[in-house]
């Protein structure tokens, strides 16, 4: 239903997409995960015909976004990270407008709008209340409803739950699952690994404009190896020494030297934990917390992109000075930040 074939896109010198291939069959949810500046938004903009790729092509329900933009748009529903609703119109008017612009007759568009308002629990607002006075969550739901007005076979959701409260997020998740159950192909970009884990049938990790890993959540977790060992330290600057100590007993450590915590592989579970604590005691390193756990997609991410799980939010990059040069704080695509990021790499 969605097919990306060797998509490339550059902004000036910065290559935002360096050959992206992806297939999303009908009835599945494809998660697209990546840090800021990785190429998620650029991918979405190409798929939604807002941006023409430099090379390659993408197909929405078989229609090329390059040459059959109109047919592609007809099969497409989009909901963005900023809710694109008209503040001056009511929810009903917003959805009716979208329906009409999909080519529906006014009456049919209105009927469909009522249906969606009910479905997304937006029908309880006083008649005549404009979208401008909706809460953030309601606006997002209205925007999502806008994507579904024409029952398109392909739905693209760009960070649909960013900024939503838990209830709103749960509602949105339910709606997305229901879409896939009805046979819709859904592409979902997200910064929340938990969200991808919950919803996606398949996850693609994008970094530096390339898909660097792809598979089901279970496959990807298996890639991260067995159990993980988390440790926290009291004194700053302990991590390099701890890393050395743990490496010497054969554990693979991922952490930032400036952070106060690390995560290591623990193939032997309790054995590894004991060995690790012993090694640290030997090196006279004080541990304030140590725990064993199952791998999460965070670990996958960390391993694949060689970055801490800063994908969760911008906070990590603020906390960890060592990371900040490699993290573009703004949304991609921002050529300036992205270019800076490229320089640091090379």
């Amino acid at each position, binding site marked *: 239903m969605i097919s990306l074939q060797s998509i490339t896109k550059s902004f000036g010198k910065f290559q935002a997409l360096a050959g992206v291939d992806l297939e999303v069959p009908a009835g599945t949810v494809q998660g697209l995960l990546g840090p800021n500046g990785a190429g998620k938004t650029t991918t979405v903009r190409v798929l939604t015909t807002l941006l023409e790729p430099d090379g390659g092509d993408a197909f929405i329900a078989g229609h090329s976004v390059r040459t059959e933009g109109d047919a592609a748009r007809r099969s497409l529903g989009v909901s963005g990270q*900023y809710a694109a609703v008209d503040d001056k119109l009511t929810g009903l008017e917003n959805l009716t*407008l979208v329906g009409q612009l*999909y080519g529906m007759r006014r009456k049919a568009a209105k009927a469909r709008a009522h249906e969606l308002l009910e479905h997304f629990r937006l029908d309880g607002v006083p008649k005549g209340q404009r979208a401008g006075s909706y809460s953030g969550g309601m606006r997002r739901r209205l925007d999502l409803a806008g994507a579904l007005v024409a029952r398109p076979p392909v739905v693209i959701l760009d960070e649909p739950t960013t900024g939503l409260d838990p209830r709103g997020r749960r509602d949105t998740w339910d709606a997305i699952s229901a879409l896939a159950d009805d046979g819709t192909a859904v592409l979902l970009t997200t910064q929340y690994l938990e969200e991808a884990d919950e919803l996606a049938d398949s996850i693609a990790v994008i970094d530096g404009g390339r898909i660097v890993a792809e598979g089901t959540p279970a496959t990807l977790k298996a890639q991260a190896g067995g159990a993980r060992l988390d440790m926290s330290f009291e004194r700053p600057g302990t991590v390099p020494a701890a890393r050395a100590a743990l490496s010497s007993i054969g554990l693979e450590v991922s952490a930032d030297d400036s952070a106060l915590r690390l995560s290591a592989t623990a193939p032997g579970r309790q054995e590894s934990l004991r060995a690790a604590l012993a090694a640290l005691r030997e090196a006279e390193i004080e541990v304030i917390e140590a725990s064993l756990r199952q791998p999460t997609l965070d670990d996958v991410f960390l391993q694949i992109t060689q970055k801490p799980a800063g994908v969760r939010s911008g906070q990590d990059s603020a906390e960890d000075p060592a990371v900040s040069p490699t993290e573009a704080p703004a949304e991609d695509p921002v050529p300036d930040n992205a270019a800076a990021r490229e320089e640091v790499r090379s």
Partner: protein
Amino acid sequence: MSVITAVRDGGIIARRNFTNVRRTPGALVTGVAQPIIFVLIMAFVFGGALGGADYREFLIGGLLAQTLTFNSSFTAVYLAKDLHQGIVDRFRVLPMSRVGVVLGRTWSDLITSVISTVVLVLCGLAIGWRATTDPLTITLTFLLLLLYAFAIAWVGAVVALTARSVEVAQSLGLLWLFPVCFISGAFVSADTLPGPLRGIAEWNPVTAIATAARQGFGNTAPAQFEVAGGWPAENAALYATLCCLSIIAIFAPIAVTQYRRISRR
């Protein structure tokens, strides 16, 4: 994309725009207040020195041309707002006509121009202006004014689509209006302007609209005004119509091309 789809989608967008205008308190205040302010300034501040009651009769045609030209700044601002506040991104991913958004804008702004025209006519009647020709000529003259309002809105649309932000669209959309409206025969006889300015004023579309309006309403210039001559003045209605059509022919394609280019950026 077919013309029918463009017209249909333009109509849908125009309706949405108009709902927006109705629900924005103060959105129409400028459209209403501006003609009143200009009538007061021109009729009673400058008017006394320029011929009193005779000048007030002469003035209304010029004010109509000037007001409708100024209204293109509304097009610039509202279209720029839609562009930069994400709502156009929503429209761009819909299978709607690529012309629809801009077409809808220029149509809905026509309503603002109708309101401004009505206000001006009422002000004119209050200060002694009358249309003395037959009803058909008067009707045709108002239709020409609306055609002009529609044409000049496309210039506003190009400003909006070229500007990088709403603020830039706002200032750019106003800036060009002053020389265009005042280096003209809208408020004085074009023949009193010096050298090259006179040539510009004689051929200025604003002059053509003002002159065509005066002729269409049967208004004459104060006795001491030199009568502007030349082909544009002698064929004001024809020349004004040609101006409107030329403006549309030049600016509408630019606006549509710009919109498409933005879509692909």
